[in-house]
């Protein structure tokens, strides 16, 4: 391995990224924008009333009055047809018909607000506007809010997206314009070339992650309690793992369309199950197995331990080594299957 070549490739790849405004926007601008928008959208506040519909019938006025006594329900009277449609479209959480003494609630049990609507309806009919028995204490302490959960997840998502797209697109683009063929006929080896490529990505990964963290800390007081060294290690390992995957996916693709399909195939499941927007720790069965096998889950879990908990290097040793092993494995496979032409 000739270091001079590795550095030269890293420089070229770095400049190639840094000089394309659109790549810079999608790597830095967009995640920050998402951080700000989502952060503000999920500020702690009074829960919204749950919208429900009462089917208009002979005694339905009575039912509407009884249900309206609860401040937590937003009641609308509708014809059966309209109510059915509203339920199907998710505009209401539940549909109520019958009389106050013999009401029937209909809701889709797979929707998260169905159960809540049912309980609220039940309580409104039994207890009217009586006060809560238990005193409610809203959790608004930094470190326990949704925004605190979200920021570490966005760091992971950004590393995943930037790593895969950043590596994959450049590689395939160089291949389509015959640049890789041209580099192949120089005394440069695959490992020199691919290492240089990955190193350029590492240089970008730290600042882009730290910017997101900093935003969270400054705008919403998101805590950062863990070890800084451990965080650096984690970010580097995750960046290597995701860019390794990007290189692997792009190691043979001949067109941008081809590589984009493969990228989405890798990225989409991780967006859904990788624990970025909602916790995957309560998932069960096959979903849980899949979630646990994803590098994004390792990264997000460890990042939350570092920011919300007070983890050190040893506490995140497991996800850290998993990510490092994943990076090494993808790089090794990529080296074997990589094609210059």
């Amino acid at each position, binding site marked *: 391995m000739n270091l001079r070549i590795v550095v*030269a*490739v890293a420089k*070229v790849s770095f*400049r190639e990224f840094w000089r394309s405004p659109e790549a810079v926007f999608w790597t830095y601008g967009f995640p920050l924008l998402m951080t700000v928008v989502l952060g503000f959208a999920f500020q702690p506040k009074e829960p919204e009333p749950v919208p429900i519909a009462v089917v208009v019938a002979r005694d339905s006025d009575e039912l509407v009055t009884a249900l309206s006594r609860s401040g937590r329900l937003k009641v609308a009277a509708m014809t059966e047809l309209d109510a059915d449609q509203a339920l199907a479209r998710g505009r209401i959480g539940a549909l109520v018909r019958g009389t106050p003494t013999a009401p029937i609630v209909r809701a889709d049990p797979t929707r998260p607000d169905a159960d809540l609507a049912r309980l609220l309806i039940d309580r409104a009919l039994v207890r009217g506007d009586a006060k809560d028995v238990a005193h409610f204490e809203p959790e608004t302490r930094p470190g326990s809010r949704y925004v605190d959960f979200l920021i570490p997840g966005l760091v992971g998502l950004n590393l995943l997206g930037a790593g895969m797209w950043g590596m994959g697109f450049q590689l395939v683009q160089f291949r389509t314009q*015959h640049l890789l*063929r041209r*580099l192949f*006929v120089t*005394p440069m080896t695959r490992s020199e070339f691919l290492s240089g490529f990955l190193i350029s990505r590492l240089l970008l990964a730290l600042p882009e992650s730290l910017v997101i963290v900093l935003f969270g800390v400054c705008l919403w007081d998101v805590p950062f309690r863990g070890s800084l060294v451990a965080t650096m290690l984690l970010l580097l390992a995750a960046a290597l793992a995701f860019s390794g995957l990007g290189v692997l996916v792009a190691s043979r693709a001949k067109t941008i369309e081809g590589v984009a399909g493969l990228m989405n195939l890798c990225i989409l499941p991780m967006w859904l199950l990788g624990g970025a927007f909602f916790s995957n720790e309560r998932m069960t069965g096959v979903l849980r197995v899949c979630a646990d096998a994803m590098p994004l889950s390792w990264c997000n879990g460890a990042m939350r331990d570092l920011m919300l908990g007070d983890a050190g290097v040893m506490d995140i040793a497991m996800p850290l080594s998993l990510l490092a092993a994943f990076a090494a494995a993808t790089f090794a496979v990529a080296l074997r299957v990589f094609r210059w032409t």
Partner: protein
Amino acid sequence: MSDSGLAIELRALRKVYQKKQQTTVAVDGLDLDVRRGEVFGLLGPNGAGKTTTVEICEGLSRQTSGEVRILGRTWGSGSDLAIRARIGVCLQETKFFDKQTVRETLQLFAACYGRGRSVDAALESVSLAEKASSRQSQLSGGQRQRLAVATALLGQPELLFLDEPTTGLDPQSRRQLWEIVRSFQRQGGTVLLTTHYMEEAEQLCTRIGVVDRGKSIALGTPQELIRSLGAEHVVELEAKDLAGIKDTELGALPSVQSCERSGDKVALKVQSVHLAVPPLLELLRARGKALDGLSTRHATLEDVFVHLTGRQLREEASS
């Protein structure tokens, strides 16, 4: 190792492309020796197999059968990197980095070679010094091609491959590139270049291999090839209603070797213009044909190609 004195040796080279139902024989039993210090030109129409041959020489693709020795070594026998360190390559089409300047592009290639010349020297040698900080998108076609040649020269190669280096360039850019190639040769370098411009082959090459449909159909210096026609001049005449005069009559005129027609035009290959033209004019006057045009020129490689294949080089090239 490379004491044979040959830069390139090809023996019975064959390359077959297999694509589903279609089988293309791109190179069909080619034998070729390129000596050290010469500029060897592969001349042939589009699809003749030039690029395929050159890419096999460069180690970019593998032959189906046959032997290839580059600077005395073979590809795939553990010395690939050592060969690559000694050759320079300019592919038929390469787009360099969109976002790097000329200098930065050259710096990457310079890093690949341990020894080698400086980036500044390379810029100077292809007259791109004042474009050093421009990006590729700001270069003209000729400047891009010179950049490509500069990347190939950075490692101070012994052997330079140029695949259609001047296709699509204006005459001035073409001359500039010829000058770069000549100066490389003067410093002891060997060049294998492909072209479908006979003027280029005549001007630049010490020896030429004419290829058609994957086969070598003629080999020699430009002068030898032209001399092989047996006639060094071409007399072209244009007149209405020439059909009345038979080929055999024209062929029987003194010093005329052969005769080709296209429409109202006739081209005669002749050895000595001063012997052939007076009787030709006499014949035309006797038949009452009025000349619309008459010109004489030296025979070119184009005539050699037409003579060997019955087809024009350029017609094929543009299709």
